[in-house]
Every structure is written in structure tokens, then in C-alpha cells.
């Protein structure tokens, strides 16, 4: 009898998780909470404080991006080695003044490790498409399922100096979650993700498109927008630095917040609410 109840409760838990994947709504959450209650006796450790945090679209996009950005930066540094000089304006070559003479990026940073412009370009151009269409799909899905509206909307008071300072203090104390609402993004997270999704990623994609001579014929206004092909190339490089900095900060915070729990939540969707030090 007990074994039967255990199986039934596990089934209830499983079904609730499935429905959460499909579209999260309060009733499903309550169903899940009830199932957790029922299975508490059997499964108290894993079920007690585990919450569903990331939906399948977010998780899929996260890993597609992680791979794409990693490969795009590596291959992009390989491409940079072919002509490590940045210019402003439409033209720029060896006899024109460069605003930045870049270092030669070492083999352990580039794809491929040994200099090969053709293969760097093959990697870069393939994963450029993956990044661009991934972002497009994610934007469409996240507008339709209101992910942006629910998770990333900056609310009244979020940007007040008091809230910003309070959040900064919490970050410095390595407390990243509001105990009353642990799955909500804090204001720094919201601003970072908004900047990433709506500014940095579109900018790196469109400056990339502006480097294509055929697309210059099709979309000449893109060149006007960025101030010429060599300016677009410079902005493309600066965006890469922005993405690299984001990745470093992101990974550091993942480690500080608990690498295993955070990584698992981005794979399975389920996140254990951490017990953070409280004053």
C-alpha cells in the first residue's frame, strides 16, 4: 500500500513538472506543491525546497548560446589575427591610421589553435547563424509565453536609488536572492539580461551582418547606421569584449551562488532554494 502511494505521488510530481514545462501557471504550481507535500515522507530531501525555475526554451537557448558564444569568440580572435588593426569609417588598411593595434591572440585562445583564417571563418559564419536565429526564436517564444514580461520587466521602484543600493549591499554580502521570492531576478540581473538580449546581442549580430559585402548591397542603411564597414568591424570587436566580460562575471556569480545547484537548474529546470547567510 505504501509502495503504491509512493509511486502515485512520484507520478503526480512528474506530471506536475511536465505541465510546468509546457507553460507555467499558478494552478500547476499549487498542484506541484500538493504533490510535494504528499511525497514529503518519501522524498523530503529533494522535494522540500526545490522549485521550478527555468523553462525549456530558456534552458535550450542558454546552452545553444553558451556553445555559440564560446566558439564565436575563439574563432573571432583567430580572424582578428589575420589583420589585427581596428579603424573608424568606411575604409582602413595597413597604410591608414588604426585606432587600436590589437595584440596577436595566442593559440590557446583561438579556434583553430594554429592560425587558419579559412577554418576560423567556417566556425564563425556557421555559429553566427546559430546565434542570430537562436536569438530570434527565443525572442518570439519569450514574447508569446510572456517570459520577458514576467521575469524581466523592470517594476516601479526597482530603479530607485534605495533599491539599487540595497541590492548592491546584498550582492557584496553574496546574498543573491530575495528570501520572500527567491526565484525573482534582482534588478542587476534584470538590467544585465535586458542589455544582453535587447542591445548587446542584436548589436553584435547586426555589426556582423554589416561586414558582409553582399549584405551591404542589400541593406546599405546598416552601414550608414554604424558609420561604415570598418566602424562596424570595430563595434563588432567591442561587443565581443562586452560578451566576454559578461561571461566572466556570469560564471563567477554562478560559482559564488553554488555551481552545482545553478548548473543543474539550467539543465533540468529545478533549482534548490539556497540557505543564504542572513544577518
Amino acid at each position, binding site marked *: 500500500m505504501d509502495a503504491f502511494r509512493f509511486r502515485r505521488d512520484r507520478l503526480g510530481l512528474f506530471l506536475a513538472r511536465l505541465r510546468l514545462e509546457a507553460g507555467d501557471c499558478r494552478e500547476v504550481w499549487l498542484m506541484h506543491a500538493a504533490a510535494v507535500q504528499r511525497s514529503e515522507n518519501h522524498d523530503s530531501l529533494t522535494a522540500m525546497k526545490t522549485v521550478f525555475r527555468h523553462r525549456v526554451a530558456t534552458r535550450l537557448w542558454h546552452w545553444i548560446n553558451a556553445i555559440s558564444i564560446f566558439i564565436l569568440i575563439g574563432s573571432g580572435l583567430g580572424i582578428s589575427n589575420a589583420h589585427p588593426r581596428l579603424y573608424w569609417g568606411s*575604409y582602413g588598411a595597413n*597604410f591608414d591610421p588604426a585606432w587600436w593595434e590589437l595584440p596577436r591572440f595566442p593559440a*590557446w585562445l583561438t579556434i583553430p589553435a594554429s592560425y587558419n583564417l579559412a577554418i576560423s571563418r*567556417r566556425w564563425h559564419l556557421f555559429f553566427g547563424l546559430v546565434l542570430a536565429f537562436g536569438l530570434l526564436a527565443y525572442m518570439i517564444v519569450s514574447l508569446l509565453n510572456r517570459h520577458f514580461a514576467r521575469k524581466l520587466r523592470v517594476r516601479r521602484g526597482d530603479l530607485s536609488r534605495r533599491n539599487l543600493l540595497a541590492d548592491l549591499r546584498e550582492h557584496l554580502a553574496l546574498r543573491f536572492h530575495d528570501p520572500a521570492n527567491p526565484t525573482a531576478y534582482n534588478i542587476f540581473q534584470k538590467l544585465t539580461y535586458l542589455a544582453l538580449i535587447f542591445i548587446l546581442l542584436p548589436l553584435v549580430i547586426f555589426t556582423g551582418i554589416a561586414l558582409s559585402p553582399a549584405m*551591404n548591397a542589400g541593406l546599405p542603411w546598416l552601414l550608414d547606421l554604424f558609420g561604415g564597414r570598418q566602424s562596424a568591424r570595430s563595434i563588432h570587436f567591442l561587443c565581443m569584449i562586452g560578451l566576454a566580460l559578461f561571461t566572466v562575471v556570469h560564471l563567477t556569480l554562478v560559482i559564488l551562488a553554488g555551481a552545482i545547484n545553478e548548473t543543474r537548474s539550467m539543465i533540468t529546470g529545478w533549482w534548490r532554494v539556497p540557505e543564504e547567510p542572513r544577518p
Partner: protein
Amino acid sequence: MILGRRSLIAGSAALLAGCDTVIQQPAARRILFLGEDMHRGLQRALVNRNALAPEFTGAERSPFFRPNGTRDPGTSEYAALQAGKFADWRLQVGGLVAQPLSLSLSDLGAFPQRVQITRHDCVEGWSAIAKWQGPKLGDVLKAAGMRDAARYIVFTCADLYGGAPYYESIDLVDAFHPQTILAWALNDRFLPVMNGAPCRLRVERQLGYKHAKYLMRVEAVASLDGIGKGKGGYWEDNVDYDWYAGI
């Protein structure tokens, strides 16, 4: 934390090395190289086939148009042509045409001329703007009576790479594009030797290595098989450059 950071660095080094292992696998290579066809398909679908590459004013030109690749073919045949100021040079137009042509520089000058100030983009990343003049390739192909079976135009050059002439090829969309010209003048002078004298291709919606210099032969063909190693150009054959260089 230290452990986490170390394993992150080790992990990313392993991933980078992994990419180099992946590209050795023929199947992975094929998938990755599909990127070229995807870009070509997307660009051809999105961009009008006659859309013009941006053109500039005289004041927007680069102070100096740098050469790249061969600066001087250096063969005795080329030296002889150069000594005669290219009076004996003839451009052979053949392959799948009704009437093969043998054109001198003044023959090229007799066609309606196109003058354009355009940006040259090297695959390495640099750009230079210059003024070019010459007949449209499309007009020359029409004069030779190109046959319906033709799908590609192949350009053979006077400079040698690994003992064989440099060559390149483009499809008919770019061959008949209004800005695709057989340029014999750069910035109002005859082409200098370092820039491809006496005549080079300008195919403005593609990268620099497609703009074959020191032109000797223009041929209309049905297929690129059997020419060089079959990939449509010296760099395509030997170092995996994209044949479609509009990217």
C-alpha cells in the same frame, strides 16, 4: 571557488582543443561547411540580385590602394607583355560561347564603360576604396554569345601559385551584375602591376580574393569539376576558403 575557477579554465581549454578535433571529422566538417550554402541561400533570398554595392565619392577614397597577393607575376611571358606596355596582351573569352573573342586593351575600351568608386574588402578584414573603370563582364559575355548551358564564369590569370595559374570563378548572378566589370583603370590611370595590370575582375559584392588580377582567360563553363581541384578557385582548392565570398 579556486577549484571552480581552475576547472573552468581547464574545461574551456579542453573545449577549444575539442573544436580542433571535431573539425578533423569529415561529417562535422561537412556540416560546418554547409554554413557557406546557408549564407548564400539566405543572401540570395534577401538581397535583390541586381542590388548595387555601395558607391562612394572621389573624396571618400583611400589615400593608397594597397596591393595583396601577387605584386608581380614575374614570369618571362608576363615580363614580355609588360615590356610592350601590354600592346600584345589579349584577353581570351571562350568556353561555352558561340563566338570566342580575343580582346586587346583598346577592344575593352571600345565597349560601353562603367566607372565606379567602390570598397574592396579583403577576407583578412581590411577595406580600401578606389575608382575603377572597365566594360561590364555581362556585355563582353553577350558579345561572345554565351550558351544556355553555361553556369559559371572561370577567370585564369598570368600569376602562378604553386606552379599553376591563379584562377577564380563566379556564378551567373554575379557575372551579369551591373557592377561586375573587367577593370583596366584604377583611380584614372592604367592598372599598376601590383594591382593586376593590365586587367582585373571587379565583383563588388564579394571579398577581395574573388577579384582575379592579371586576367588572361575568361571562360563560360557548365561545371567547375575538373578545373583545378574542382572547388572553383586557388584558395578554395587549397585552403578551404568559401567559394561564395559574399559573406
